């Protein structure tokens, strides 16, 4: 089974501060990490490989420094690493990122399954995974909490939503994005770490991809970021407590008093 995991290197947002004057992230000195949700995708891919055989290729689009994220993924069990990096890709939005990644994945040959984390903790859009499936014209299931079964031609997964989960069956090749309930990622092993130090990172640049310039990078991105700001803090609000019946009565009274109903 040929599995591809798409990962992103992100600033460790638990340690990021916001510059109160410009409202932008202060990235200096903040450690870069693998997007936490992508760890679950890597782990699931490695588990599927261990159970069914095959290879796990890990891919990221990003600046040259993103190599460290790929090496970490190899230390966690991935077999091959691809860094899609070129000035032409800088500033890509989710659509353009998916467009470029799709071209890079096509170059890998047959792929049975693509895994992504459910979203990246910096942009929080949750779009690249589904958008990538769309570009590749394959089915996707987002928010997967469990892979029930997988064969050469089909997989059955559990997709979570607020009130429960759905069991979804999909032909392969397919793309899934995973949530953190899916597994508990392992820590790197010594053998993995040593392999990661030595492994070749395959560089993928503009010239190797069948892509068209108008769709690349900042200029090729349909999204325009007009302004970034911290939302004003909302007032604390009022919390109603007590028995359900009393709460309901209080709520209705309040709403009536404010002439809202």
């Amino acid at each position, binding site marked *: 089974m040929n599995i591809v995991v798409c990962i992103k290197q992100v600033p460790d947002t638990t340690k990021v501060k916001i510059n109160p004057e410009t409202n932008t992230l202060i990235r200096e000195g903040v450690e870069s990490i693998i997007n936490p949700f992508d760890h679950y995708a890597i782990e699931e891919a490695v588990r599927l490989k261990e159970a069914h055989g095959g290879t796990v290729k890990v891919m990221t689009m990003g600046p040259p420094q993103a190599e460290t994220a790929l090496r970490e993924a190899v230390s966690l069990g991935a077999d091959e690493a691809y860094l899609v990096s070129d000035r032409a890709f800088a500033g890509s939005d989710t659509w353009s990122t998916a467009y470029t990644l799709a071209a890079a994945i096509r170059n890998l040959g047959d792929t049975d399954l693509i895994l992504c984390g459910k979203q990246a903790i910096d942009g929080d859009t949750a779009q690249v995974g589904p958008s990538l499936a769309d570009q590749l014209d394959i089915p996707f299931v987002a928010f997967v909490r469990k892979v029930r079964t997988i064969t050469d031609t089909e997989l059955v997964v559990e997709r979570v939503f607020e009130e429960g989960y759905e069991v979804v069956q999909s032909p392969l090749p397919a793309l899934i994005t995973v949530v953190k309930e899916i597994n508990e990622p392992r*820590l*790197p*092993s*010594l053998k993995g*770490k*040593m392999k990661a130090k030595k492994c070749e990172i395959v560089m993928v640049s503009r010239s190797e991809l069948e892509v068209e310039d108008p769709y690349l990078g900042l200029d090729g991105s349909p999204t325009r970021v007009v302004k970034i700001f911290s939302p004003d803090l909302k007032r604390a609000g009022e919390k109603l407590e007590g028995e359900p019946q009393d709460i309901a009565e209080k709520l209705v009274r309040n709403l009536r008093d404010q002439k809202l109903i």
Partner: protein
Amino acid sequence: MDYFLTEEQQAIQEIARQIAEEKVVPVREELDEKEQFPAEIMEICGQSDLFGLAIPEEYGGFGGGVLETSLAVEELSKACLGVSVSFAATGLGCYPILLFGSDEQKQKYLPVLASGEQLAAFGLTEADAGSDAGGIRTTATKDGDSYILNGTKQWITNGGEAGIYTIIAITDRRKGPRGASSFIVEKGTPGFSFGKKEKKMGIRASATRELVFEDCRIPAENRLGREGMGFMVAMRTLDISRPGIAAQGVGVAQGALDVAVNYARERKQFGQTIISFQAVQHMLADMAIKTEAARAVTYSVARYIDSGAKDFSKMSAISKVLGADVAMQVTTDAVQVLGGYGYMREYPVEKMMRDAKILQIYEGTNQIQRNVIGAGLIKEYAQKK
């Protein structure tokens, strides 16, 4: 401080540090409180290849030595000595096989130990034979193709948890110091059972139990080395594993120093942080001096042993005494720096102090180590003139 570690050695440190920070620190208080064996953490150490550090590659290990093991032990010890001794005791149980095992014995046992599939333990001590190991009474009587073991080992780390035990027993009492032999005994062998788990002052996550042998029959091929080599096996094993105890001392001391410095930077009294008081700074400075000195000696002795040195009993004892004494002093001072808060279980230093005490006792008390160092000096200076 740069100790010029290789890439591999740095990777070992990173892995052990990550396990310590992410998997040990969050549960250490609970493990201590409930006296619970860290089975899950041992599994993680296995998956991360840490159990194979000193085992040759041909037996599924990493092919490192005492330094590699010490680095891993130090990192785990920063977080919890109870966890680190559970890890290190497998190394102790493993060394007799590594040092004296036949190729068949190595083939059979080292790969499962390297992977962490099985833990090991080392059984020498008995109720009436502690420092005076020559006083052991457990016997191994030859009977055809077997030996029959009878007797009770006391306070064996990993007892009951380990799958593989290396045991020292008397094969011929008349031969005195040459009358003991060492054996591999597997858990589950009929006639081999465990006593109750001991209730301890510290390292409470670790399991310490009696090993009880009642007409326990083991195949003769489980003997390590020749008959009569038992005490040699034991002494060689302990000599090579003692820098690991030193590494435990360095680790727990560093862990305590880290807590103490961070606390002193935050805690305010008399309108200023307590680290601004010179008395506190000097205490922290002394803690740092001792810890770094112990680390330097531990790494040097480990490297010396790994270089293939033959005569290292004295240096090994020096590292053990220093590491253990430093750990006791530094953890005690860390409690002092934290004051009343340090005495509370809410903060980790009281546990570190309780834990550190064992380092001066097991694997040969610090008094016995000083005897070894003294004997070494007498021998060396006698040869000099």
